[in-house]
């Protein structure tokens, strides 16, 4: 038997194994990426460094949102030895039971994660890992317990950064931070569980700017999870960068003053600089201290209380509340009528009181006087002329064309559509158009007489206080506006491009003069409804409003701007359930304007009366 050929069997066997192994090695090392990922999972840790958020300044450079250092009390179970639960509970001021349940919570809760490979939720709790035992302790709290921590091996402090508000104002503008939820983590890989995200207001709108850029350190870790060395000598590391500071148009002193006046009242004040569209103050009453919403513990404590408060302090009224604009709307009706040519500046209408009610006042012989006296029948006739221009024989078809045109005018003034203000919670208000009424009454089944209450800013028409303040701006500017906005500059950049674009209304410059004159007379002439808004040194132009409120007492409204010829401030004041606009809203607007223009108040008695008034 010749066995020499059997060497080939062995050679083939060697070749078989050698080539299968080589192919396998090539596949594992060069083609298949999954082992590289697995190795990263095992040995490399990305340590993210979260920078402090960008800070916020007011228009005069005062810091209104700052960062404050807080501490987490960290725990590493492996290092805990001879743990005295009672003594530890006493040190941190908890009950022993709470300490025990916190341990349980960390093991079961914070260690849990969803493993996408197995499709199961498993606990990733590791005794060698650090977990926050108590989150967000203040410097005072931590310094009280820090000296005793050495008695509890396995516990140590870690610094974190949180928001603080040196002025306890502007909560509804600034918004607040809270922990990201699962969907947000899924949507944006920037966030990790436990991190904060802007939840409302500017914090939310400017989240991407304020959060800054995270730094990432790649570290090689050992089987015991200790960091050994920077991965690849830090070649892939990036540096954390704090978000740019935001400079607001808000005057924090004016804001604070407004909030002080609006205590014990419900309603809002919006003040805008007409020449730039920057919001000077935006007060929602009642409001709350933004410091209540700093940190998970505070939010957990205060949020339920505030959200369940029947006076709705969390509701940003100036942006979200849609009220009928009342008589302030007569300004825009007059402007539209002048532009449409259905009236002249000198047109007069008798105060008949037949179709709509009115108070006793002299006859309005021109538009300015109509504004001054706020004559309801005058604007009833005026708007009827806008809506029913006689272009169609059929009354209802004619009204349809007229209303569509009217609605277009309204939209050009920013009514009935959302102003693109840089904050969340802005509502559009409502300008009814033909489609809207068709739905209610049926096609060609309505005419001006059906919808006449829109002529005096009642009925279906709704506007937010922000839109009314913007109306004051438009009149102050005689025909144009910048979209009202908060942020003047982001770091070294100016405001967002959309706030550098002038919006012109459909009403020509020349038609504004009689209306402005009317507004001047409202405040400065005898028989005007807004005398309480008068200033000594500057001419205030204003318009009162009294919004019929089926649920209770009428709302008091006043919009104004001053000075008349070089407007520096436009304002809308809205006081809920306060009755006639001239009684409450006008003097409050007056105080705000005086505070802004002269930094001091001359009539202390009026100030005190307004502050003390309890209209809640």
């Amino acid at each position, binding site marked *: *038997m010749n066995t020499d050929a059997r*060497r080939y069997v062995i050679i083939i*066997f060697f070749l078989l194994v*050698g080539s299968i192994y080589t192919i*396998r090695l090539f596949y594992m090392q*060069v083609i298949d990426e999954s*082992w590289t990922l697995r*190795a990263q999972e095992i040995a490399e840790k990305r340590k993210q460094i979260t920078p402090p958020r960008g800070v916020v300044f007011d228009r005069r450079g005062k810091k209104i949102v700052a960062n404050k250092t807080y501490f987490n009390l960290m725990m590493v179970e492996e290092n805990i030895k001879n743990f005295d639960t009672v003594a530890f509970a006493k040190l941190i001021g908890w009950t022993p039971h709470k300490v025990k349940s916190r341990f349980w919570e960390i093991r079961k809760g914070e260690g849990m994660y969803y493993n996408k490979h197995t499709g199961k939720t498993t606990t990733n709790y590791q005794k060698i890992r650090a977990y926050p035992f108590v989150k967000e302790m203040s410097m005072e709290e931590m310094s009280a317990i820090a000296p005793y921590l050495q008695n509890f091996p396995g516990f140590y402090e870690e610094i974190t950064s949180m928001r603080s508000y040196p002025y306890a104002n502007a909560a509804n503008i600034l918004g607040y931070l809270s922990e990201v939820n699962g969907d947000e983590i899924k949507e944006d890989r920037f966030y990790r569980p436990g991190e904060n995200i802007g939840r409302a207001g500017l914090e939310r709108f400017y989240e991407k700017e304020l959060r800054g850029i995270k730094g990432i350190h790649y570290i*090689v870790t050992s*089987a015991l999870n200790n960091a050994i060395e920077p991965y690849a000598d830090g070649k892939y590391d990036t540096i954390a960068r704090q978000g740019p500071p935001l400079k607001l148009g808000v005057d924090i002193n004016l804001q604070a003053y407004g909030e002080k006046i609006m205590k014990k009242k419900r309603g809002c004040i919006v003040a805008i600089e007409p020449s730039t569209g920057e919001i000077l103050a935006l007060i929602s009453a009642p409001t709350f201290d933004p410091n209540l919403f700093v940190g998970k513990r505070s939010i957990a404590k205060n949020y339920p209380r505030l959200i369940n408060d029947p006076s709705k302090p969390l509701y940003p009224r100036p942006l979200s509340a849609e009220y009928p604009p009342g008589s302030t709307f007569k300004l825009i009706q007059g402007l539209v009528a002048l532009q449409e040519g259905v009236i002249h500046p000198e047109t007069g209408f008798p105060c008949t009181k037949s179709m709509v009610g009115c108070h006793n006042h002299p006859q309005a012989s021109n538009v300015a006087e109509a504004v001054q006296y706020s004559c309801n029948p005058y604007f009833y006739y005026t708007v009827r002329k806008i809506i029913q221009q006689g272009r169609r024989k059929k009354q209802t078809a004619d009204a349809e064309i007229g209303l569509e045109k009217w609605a277009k005018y309204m939209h050009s003034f920013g009514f009935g559509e959302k102003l693109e203000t840089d904050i969340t919670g802005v509502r559009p208000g409502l300008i009814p158009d033909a489609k809207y009424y068709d739905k209610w009454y049926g096609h060609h089944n309505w005419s001006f007489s059906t919808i006449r209450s829109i002529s005096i800013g009642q009925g279906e028409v709704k506007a937010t206080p922000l839109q009314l303040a913007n109306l004051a701006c438009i009149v102050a500017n005689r025909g144009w506006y910048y979209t009202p906005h908060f942020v003047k500059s982001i770091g070294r950049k100016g405001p967002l491009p959309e706030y550098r674009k002038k919006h012109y209304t459909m009403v020509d410059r020349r038609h504004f003069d009689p209306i402005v004159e009317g507004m001047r007379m409202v405040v400065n002439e005898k028989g005007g409804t807004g005398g309480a808004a008068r200033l000594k040194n500057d001419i205030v132009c204003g318009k009162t409003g009294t919004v019929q409120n089926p649920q209770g007492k009428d709302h008091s409204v006043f919009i104004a701007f001053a000075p008349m010829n070089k407007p520096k401030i436009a304002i809308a004041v809205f006081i809920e359930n306060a009755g006639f606009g001239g009684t409450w809203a006008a003097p409050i607007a007056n105080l705000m304007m005086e505070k802004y223009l002269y930094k001091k108040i001359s009539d202390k008695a009026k100030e005190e009366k307004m502050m003390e008034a309890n209209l809640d």
Partner: protein
Amino acid sequence: MKRNDSIAGNIDWGLFIVFLVMLLMGIANVYSAAYNPKFPSLFDFSQKYGKQIMWVAFSSFLGLLVFLIDASIYRKFAIPIYLFCLSLLVVVLFMPSVNGARAWLGIGSLGIQPAEFAKIGTAIALASFISSINVRQQTVNTVVIANIILLVPMVLILLQPDAGTFVVFTGFLFVMYREGITYDPIILNLVNLLPGVRFKKTWVGSHFIPILFVVIFLSIITLLMSNNIITFSFLPGVEIPGFFGVIGTLFTIGLSSYLILRFFVSKRDRPRITMIVVIGFVLCSLISSIVNFGFQGLRKHQKDRIELFLGLREDPDGEDYNRNRAMAAVGSGGFFGKGYNNASVASVESNHVPESETDFIFCPLAEEWGFLGSFTIMGLFMFMLFRIIQIAERQKSTFNRVYAYSVAMILFYHYAVNIGMNIGFAPVIGIPLPFFSYGGSSMMSFSVMIYILLKLDSQRGDVLG
């Protein structure tokens, strides 16, 4: 002097140089795998790299002795050497156990592992026995004696227990196969017991060993890969089921082995070789298919058991910890590797891969040098193995040939199992990678094994028989 010259002249430089290259690479690799920043010197004898150099030096001294002693001594003293190894294997069973095995003779780290040296003893004994018989007239007795020579150390090693070395000893079955010691006489006796059957020889009996191993090897590979889906990062969307991957691999190997053999085989043998390759491919595919579809047809709990045995069940942080970490280290190497001393998974400091300087030495190597490095290692080993077979086949003496084949098979087993467990093709059984793993006993035994082979080869002209 003249004698030494003749050694230098007759020495197989190819094998010797590959051997030296591997030793040097091995030291460099242990230096990286066991690097201690407090003791940066390569020659620090308190550290594993310093010690490894010491072992290499000591092995070289033993090699010098081997070269000075006449080669005929192994043949003359084969039985005493074999019995001495067996006695060490017996003595070691009475030693205190270290890590659950009574494998160490001596104190602590200065001990030796008799099992490592028993390989040499068994190889010499087997060579001596086979050279003393006429394989053309073998009986049941010769088969039984050859198997006893093999089985006695195997049983003693299993008693330690040392599963790795036990598996390595099965390599001798291939040596016996090559020499014509087959199970044919036994199978003939059994088959001829059937009434009316009178075979003179059986094909199964004479090729029993390789067939058995091919079946086992292919079955394991098929089972490991049948549930996988092979994807390519450069060909998104292309997914090859694991079974077709196996068949494809077999086809590639069949084709390439045919092409290789075409140029090395004489014209006379070509039809036969072609037939063997074709039949081999068909049979291998058949085995793979049977295993694959047979496995799919199993009941769930049976499947579970097999999967658990093969380590197919994902339990990366539990029982499969070592292999998973090792595979991550190897797989993350990429094409060019992470650079010398830059391993992140298999480095000493991180310690994710345990025993990365001994049994898992391939991990730091493959991680730091990437596919280039691992391909080089594969190439060096394949070169060494083929060189040894070449040496074996040129021996006039049966003793020398059997010994050379034994060396080839032992090295092959160590290499195949050790690297196999790093790439998920072999279960984790602790056996060292020759010339690379840290350890005195393995370094000495592998070196002496090679030195004896070189010595025998250098004197191949002296001995006839």
